[in-house]
């Protein structure tokens, strides 16, 4: 009885496996890129979405005025050229006359104006509104020219405009209220089908002003388990994949047919202290924590060494050698001395919060920091939470310490004004007010000379590391894995997949 059944079961499995293989081989011919990721896009409104996957999807469908390239230099997108006025209070764009939306209508200055008005309208709930508050008015002298009049010089605004959260959407769709329910952009791909938490089907936009795309379409599958993504790549079902977990990513190079692309990203892993809570109110206690943490060990243990130790500035053009920053070489004796001076020779107890799986290394980071801080008498209680619960506590500043992976921006002002200026929207999260930081930020905002800017932000970084409201740890890599016959993908520090528009599949 059992023997008979087992035989039947085995033949069933073999049949199933053969069918699976058959399904795979039929996919090889079409010039469609089969892509997988473990987290799906959560919505289609480019002005409201901030989830990593949503941005990556929307960057293929919509376009901003400008883009940043792999070295974070501003390059043309919808705009072919741009210029600041001498006083820095007017920014003029010339639009590409060939730019069209995917329904064939021309993209004009009226669409640009309507898009920015939508972002600035509080009723929209646009994520990037705070970056554009210096826009006083928008002029459209002709269909291909847009002039932004600014209330004050604002150098970072150009970089902020490269973000897909500042995408240009059709004025008609804004009026119809259909942004977010359908995706109609001017980018390289059209969204043919979106099945949330399962699949996206994109086809090439033949009218794209950027020229012909390298593939006819992209099919994105949601495979929630990254080990399963790797398995699907082994069997050639998937050509290209986004990976989050360094544990899975480091397995990719072991497969002969696969290639791993990795690039340091702007986002940073950080231990946020809450300087409004005792004893983190004491500078010496915060500095002691900074001195007691071995950043390289956190990186090696939690992320298998996949990344590099960083100071607050993660932008390659501005970053300085982190070993020159305050206490970036671990010094437990100094830490103990600082604790004693602050009156905490016996240490103290605190709670550190983290989000489960976001990033995948969060729990490991918390554990290694817990053991490092134990050496100076700090007893850490680790509290891991579901992401939304964590975000809620984080936004309220309701924590002693928090393990965080905070997003980076191509411009340091846009990246940090929310935390370290007096009017910053996330001042409540950082809970640390410092005149020096505020004035350095304001100077950096107005300055347009690159060398001067670098000097200002170097000072800013040095001061921030010394005041230690947060303990910056490391930046990790963004990973993509691909079959070796995929050519032309350029990984960038912003994590964008835009270069999929020029990717080709070699036979």
């Amino acid at each position: 009885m059992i023997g008979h059944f087992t035989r039947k079961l085995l033949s069933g499995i073999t049949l199933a496996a053969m069918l699976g293989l058959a399904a795979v081989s039929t996919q090889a011919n079409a010039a469609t890129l089969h892509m997988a990721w473990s987290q799906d896009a959560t919505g289609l409104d480019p002005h409201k979405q901030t989830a990593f996957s949503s941005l990556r999807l929307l960057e293929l469908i919509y376009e901003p005025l400008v883009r940043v390239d792999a070295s974070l230099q501003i390059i043309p997108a919808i705009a072919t050229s741009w210029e600041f006025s001498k006083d820095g209070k007017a920014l003029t764009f010339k639009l590409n006359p060939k730019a069209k939306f995917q329904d064939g209508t021309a993209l004009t200055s009226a669409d640009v104006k309507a898009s920015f008005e939508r972002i600035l309208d509080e009723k929209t709930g646009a994520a990037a509104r705070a970056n554009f508050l210096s826009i006083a008015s928008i002029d459209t002298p002709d269909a291909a020219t847009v002039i932004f009049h600014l209330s004050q010089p604002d150098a970072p605004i150009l970089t902020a405009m490269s973000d897909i959260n500042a995408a240009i959407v059709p004025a008609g769709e804004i009026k119809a209220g259909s942004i977010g329910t359908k995706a109609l952009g001017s980018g390289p791909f059209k969204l043919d089908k979106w099945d949330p938490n399962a699949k996206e089907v994109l086809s090439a936009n033949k009218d794209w002003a950027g020229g012909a795309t390298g593939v006819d379409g992209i099919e994105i599958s949601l495979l929630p388990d990254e080990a399963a993504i790797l398995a699907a790549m082994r069997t050639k079902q998937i050509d290209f994949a986004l990976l989050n977990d360094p544990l899975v990513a480091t397995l990719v190079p072991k497969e002969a047919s696969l290639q791993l692309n990795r690039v340091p990203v702007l986002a940073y892993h950080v231990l946020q202290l809450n300087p409004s809570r005792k004893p983190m109110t004491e500078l010496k206690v915060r500095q002691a924590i900074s001195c007691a943490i071995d950043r390289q060990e956190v990186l090696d243990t939690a992320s298998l060494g996949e990344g590099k130790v960083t100071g607050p500035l993660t932008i390659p053009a501005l970053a300085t050698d982190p070993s020159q920053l305050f206490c970036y070489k671990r010094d437990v004796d100094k830490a103990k001395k600082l604790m004693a001076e602050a009156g905490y020779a016996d240490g103290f107890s605190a709670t550190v919060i983290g989000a489960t799986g976001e990033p995948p290394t969060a729990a490991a980071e918390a554990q290694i920091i817990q053991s490092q801080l134990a050496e100076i008498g700090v007893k850490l209680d680790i509290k891991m939470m579901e992401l939304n619960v964590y975000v809620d506590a984080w936004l309220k500043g309701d924590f002693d310490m928090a393990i965080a992976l905070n997003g980076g921006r191509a411009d340091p002002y846009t990246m940090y004004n929310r935390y370290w200026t007096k009017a910053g929207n996330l001042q409540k999260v950082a809970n640390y007010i410092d005149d020096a930081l505020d004035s350095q930020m304001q100077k950096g905002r107005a300055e347009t000379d690159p060398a001067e800017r670098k000097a200002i932000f170097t000072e800013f970084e040095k001061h921030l590391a010394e005041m230690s409201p947060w303990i910056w740890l490391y930046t990790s890599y963004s990973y993509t894995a691909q079959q070796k016959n995929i050519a032309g993908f350029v990984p960038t520090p912003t994590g964008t997949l835009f270069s999929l528009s020029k990717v080709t599949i070699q036979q």
Partner: protein
Amino acid sequence: MNYLMRRLATFPLVLLGVSILVFVAIRMVPGDSITAMLGTEAGLLTPAQRDSLAAYFGIDQPWFVQYWRWIGGILHGNFGISVTYGRPVLDVILERFPLTLELAVLSMIIALAVGMPAGIFAATHNEKLSDLGVRIVAMIGQSTPSFVLGLLIIYTLSAGFGLLPAMGEFAPLWQDPLRNLSQLILPAITLGFAFAASVTRISRSAMLDVLSDDYVRTARSKGASARSVIWRHALPNALIPVVTLSGIEFGYLLGGAVIVEQIYALPGLGRMVLDAIQQRDYALVQGSVLFIAFNFMIINLLVDLAYVGLDPRIRLGEP
């Protein structure tokens, strides 16, 4: 019949209780649809921006108004709109349910087809080496987490043999039965393995109980063959605990098998509910929990009715 009517009459009351529980529970968890959409960037919103988004997500009203609207809608057959899918909640659930049902049925077939014969075999070879073997395998089956087994299967097939059923795009049974089966057989084995182990253990002990009963001895002494004793006399009476167990397990499976659905990328109910909770898609969480509760009640009722069929001495609804 009377019993059936009385049982059915309790359904609305239980569902009302479930609806209140799920409605309150999901709102007690910190975070809302806005933080789920914007993450930490939600902190950049001005109060006016927040209000306008709250109105969009329908979370701007006091909770009792929200509850009243929701319940009122359900009485008219409207479970609300999922903000993630932009479609009616019931449509989204019913689209996912066939896969979950099919996976549950397949797992149950595997579990019963493997577990019952193995249990009976072990019982009839009580305390022999072969019984020990079955019990060890069953113990392993019960204690292996499904994610370990699932990943092991995927890894072995893909790394060892270069084989894997097509993942990502799921083919419904009525569109492409072969492809559908190829995609579901591995998840069903993964789920069925632990399920079969439970069935083995429970049918073994039930069978052992029954085999020591007087009527079995009587049957044997009257010269009934070993086969007839087991299959005709003992088995029907040993089935009751197996039916109970299967009913409960099946009920759980109809609520979706989150981990197996994650690993094999199956668009089932379990993953849908998990995603809905993470994305704070309130209408979808509420609707699907009600749906799952309803299924569970139906399964329980069917199990109770099955008792009557198995053992004519049982009279339902009588003291």
